[in-house]
């Protein structure tokens, strides 16, 4: 069995990003593996540790140099090798990323029984890559998975839907989007980080397609007006708050 974990690098949320015309200037920003991708990598590594039939855990990422940060972190967690699809465009949409990965899988000749990715990408604020990749590969997928049992020919995954936990059985190969609480991602100790630097990392060019959508501009979100402070006794505050919510903000 071969497992592919898909990773992304995202800017540290505490860092400062500034907008340019068509660019987000990320100079000086620290990049890290997308937190949800850590669940995917951890799940992949645990399956390899628990089962005798997992030959290899491979990690893949699309992006510029920052993607290497995510790949090396995943290898320090225990992935065997990495594939870096080099793309220096500032903006690439989820469909583009999914297509690049689908094409890379096809070209590599590897067949994966299980693909794991994070539920959300925290830089694109998006959950679209996983379902799109599954569709390009013509395999089933399950979103927001909180428990996963992998059998020989199928996987049983539980995810949250409105008011319930739904358990879905999918035939392998399948793609699973990993949510919080699925596993507890390990923090790799320094020796593992050092070892990961020596693990094989293949660099490949993306297929020639470009994103079909284009970003015209990045802006800071519209400034919220200053906060209106409401004063008085608890009763006065309550009635004034309900009044402004009804009459001014018109949200009630």
């Amino acid at each position, binding site marked *: 069995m071969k497992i592919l974990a898909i990773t992304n690098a995202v*800017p540290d*949320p505490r860092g400062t*990003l500034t907008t340019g015309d068509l660019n*987000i200037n990320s100079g000086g920003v620290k990049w890290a593996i997308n*937190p949800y991708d850590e669940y995917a990598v951890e799940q992949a590594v645990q399956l390899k540790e628990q089962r005798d039939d997992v030959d290899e855990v491979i990690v893949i990422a699309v992006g510029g140099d920052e993607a290497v940060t995510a790949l090396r972190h995943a290898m320090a967690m225990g992935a065997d090798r990495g594939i870096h699809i080099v793309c220096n465009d500032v*903006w690439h949409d989820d*469909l583009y990323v*999914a297509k690049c990965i689908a094409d890379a899988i096809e070209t590599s000749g590897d067949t994966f029984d299980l693909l794991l990715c994070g539920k959300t990408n*925290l830089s694109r*604020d*998006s959950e*679209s*890559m*996983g*379902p*799109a*990749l*599954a*569709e390009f590969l013509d395999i*089933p997928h399950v*979103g*927001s998975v909180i428990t996963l049992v992998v059998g020989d020919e199928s996987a*049983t995954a539980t995810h*949250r839907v*409105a*008011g319930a*936990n*739904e*358990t*879905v*059985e*999918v*035939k392998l190969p*399948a793609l699973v989007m990993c949510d*919080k609480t699925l596993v507890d991602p390990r923090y790799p100790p320094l020796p593992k980080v050092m070892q990961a630097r020596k693990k094989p990392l293949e660099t490949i060019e993306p297929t020639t397609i470009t994103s*079909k*959508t284009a*970003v*015209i*501009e*990045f*802006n*800071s*979100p*519209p400034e*919220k*007006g200053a*906060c*209106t*402070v*409401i004063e008085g006794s*608890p*009763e006065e*505050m*309550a009635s004034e*708050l309900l009044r402004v*919510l009804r009459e001014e*903000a018109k*949200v*009630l």
Partner: protein
Amino acid sequence: MGKILVVIEPNQDASMQMFTVAKELGGETDAIVMNDCECVSILPCSTAYNFSMDMYLPLQATDAVAKAIEISGATTVLIAATQVGRDLAPRVAARCGGSLIGDCTTVSNESGSIQCTRPVYGGKFVATIQAGDGLNIITVRPNAFASTDETGSPTVQTIETNHDDRETISAVEESGTNEMGVADADVIVSGGRPMGSEENFASLYELAHLLGGTVGASRAAVDEGYQPVARQVGLTGTVVAPRLYIACGIDGAIQHLAGMRGSQVIVAINTNPDAPIFKVATYGCVIDLFELVPALTKQLQQSPQPA
């Protein structure tokens, strides 16, 4: 503007908002309803497609929507960015060779081509995105557009789909309550660590229900075990953008702010006037939540919200 196809989840108000988006774009509109629903025959559109699917399954739903796109000749597909919508849209885009613009907060027709804006980098920036040539699949955040009461008398056409045996729902375990999830809620009353216990959250549920909404929690409150992870609002919880967000005893860590700053109106209730939450709040109340929440609840009980 070419033909527009609106994808409808039964009993989901956010889906009905897509007709408002369609109207704004201008263009003949068809709809496809996931599962049989009496609503199909009165939707405000030309042709309404439907198909049978008791519970959402991605492969089957993709198949049905792709067929509807082909039959209707739609070049724009509008889907509410609910849990189901976000899961379905990328598959449909990949299946039909379209482009995808997800989670938009505005959608407009700029001389015949579609432009959307959506938050990126945890809401720190807003990206303006130009739709591609050909087919565009667009998901729109719930409550970014008003709903519609309009009805119509469309031609109804049923689409045949088969269950794909590579995906099967094997169990559904009700999580005890019918409490709605934070992602789909219109109004969220959120509590932080000062809530102090799971029992104290009952007062937030009472207030939230009077307002027709549900309860969220900060990471600190979830880590303390006061609320389940599913209720966590923030970058590593759920990113939400309701019409009204009431933060009770939440200081506003950057990850929390990034997860809720897109809300239309934010009310902050906090004893610390310097808490970062006041920087994103529309209305601020510097007071102990345990004093204000009961007062709000009492007044709402006396003059309830119109349903």
